[in-house]
């Protein structure tokens, strides 16, 4: 469906509205309000509302840099030590994946590789690129950049799987001195990386991607509607 080509895209900010981050209630900014000085409260859910997330760029960079720094101990320190008959074998994230591959557990090795190495690195890179693109006021493919942002926001939490695996192994493999698993500091650093990048993704404001393009989008100002594949529900609705 192609929207009709009309004038320019009008954002809520252009029209003097603020959309609440939680309940998306559109509040009119009262005339003469200095947004830098006063704090507006959403009349619906009573949260503080902002046109754009405050200090988004600084906060995102701070969280990202913290995550990058912690990414080093997360990969160099052991995430856990498996002790069998007093013989301890410390594992880092990468050596854990390699051991799984050596043991012939390919699907598992791939899963852990994707969740613990691929996704966190990809997420750090995408967020950095998004930040740089926003700060250099790039106009390159805003739709795609917004889609990338949504992917990072959605997929980030799955990296926690390795932390949970460690937790489960620690609680299951407790057979005194003969066999036990102890968590290493690497696991804590890794959990911190995942949590910090989740916060970083949340601190980033995708609206900044769009703020540089004031005009050229084609808009007929009714939101797109997609019909589900089956229309059965519609028919049931008009039951006499």
């Amino acid at each position, binding site marked *: 469906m192609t929207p009709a080509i009309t004038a320019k895209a009008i954002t809520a900010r252009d029209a003097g509205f603020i959309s609440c981050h939680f309940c998306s209630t559109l509040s009119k900014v009262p005339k003469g309000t200095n947004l830098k000085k006063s704090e507006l409260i959403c009349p619906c859910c009573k949260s503080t509302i902002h046109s754009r997330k405050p200090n988004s760029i600084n906060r995102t960079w701070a969280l990202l840099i913290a995550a990058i720094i912690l990414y080093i101990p997360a990969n160099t320190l052991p995430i856990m030590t498996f002790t069998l008959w007093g013989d301890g074998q410390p594992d880092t994230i990468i050596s854990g994946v390699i051991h799984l591959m050596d043991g012939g557990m390919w699907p598992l090795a791939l899963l852990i590789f994707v969740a613990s190495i691929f996704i966190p690195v990809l997420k750090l890179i995408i967020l950095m690129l998004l930040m740089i693109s926003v700060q250099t006021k790039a106009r390159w493919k805003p739709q795609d950049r917004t889609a990338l942002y949504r992917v990072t926001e959605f997929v980030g939490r799955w990296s926690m799987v390795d932390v949970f695996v460690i937790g489960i192994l620690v*609680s299951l493999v407790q057979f005194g001195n003969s066999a036990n698993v102890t968590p290493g500091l690497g696991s804590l650093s890794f959990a911190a990386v995942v949590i910090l990048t989740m916060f970083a993704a949340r601190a980033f404001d995708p609206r900044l991607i769009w703020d540089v393009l004031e005009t050229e989008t084609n808009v007929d100002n*009714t939101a797109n509607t997609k019909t589900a594949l089956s229309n059965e529900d519609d028919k049931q609705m008009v039951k006499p």
Partner: protein
Amino acid sequence: MEQSNQTSVNISQIACHDCDLLQKVPQLRVGQTANCLRCNAFLFKNQKNSVDRSLAFAITGLILYIISNMFPLLSLRALGTTQDETLISTSISLFKADMPLLSIVVLFTTVIFPATTLLGTIFILIQVKRDTFNDYTAPLFRFLRSTDTWGMLEIFMLALLVAMVKLGDVAEVIFGTSLYAFCLLILSLTMLSHSLNPHDVWSKLRRDITQ
């Protein structure tokens, strides 16, 4: 800081949360989804019996959550002894292994947030059904929406599978009683997040203030 409450509300339009584009709120038929015109962000949907379905899944989820916490999920038999794993024992053993911070993270993501999500959703949906709201409804729903991504039971489920396969070679892994309830819990949580339509709840709350 000066606080201002004198804002007027615009209910005929909606701004995209990802690109801030102002657009008319479309009238959706059942089964339709509204997406942003410019960036295609999901805005809201109209789902049949959203409140009833969500309430059913939330109550089912709560019962399954309680069962999941009562019995072991997995047990490991080796060297003549058996070691049990329950939902909460993961964070307890991390705490005992001198990892208090990690234990708190696991406790919140696998025990506390799933519980608050289920209890809070039931509470809110009952209020929506009876059409009576109090001062706590909006802040509670806000809390639920913001902690939604931090409940990670489905990721814990994946971790259980990984642990099972990893240990399967070394020792005997026994499925616990709770494992079945836990699988169904993940299913009801997924169905809950699929059927719950936050837009409807907020619209009801918004109607209260615009009248």
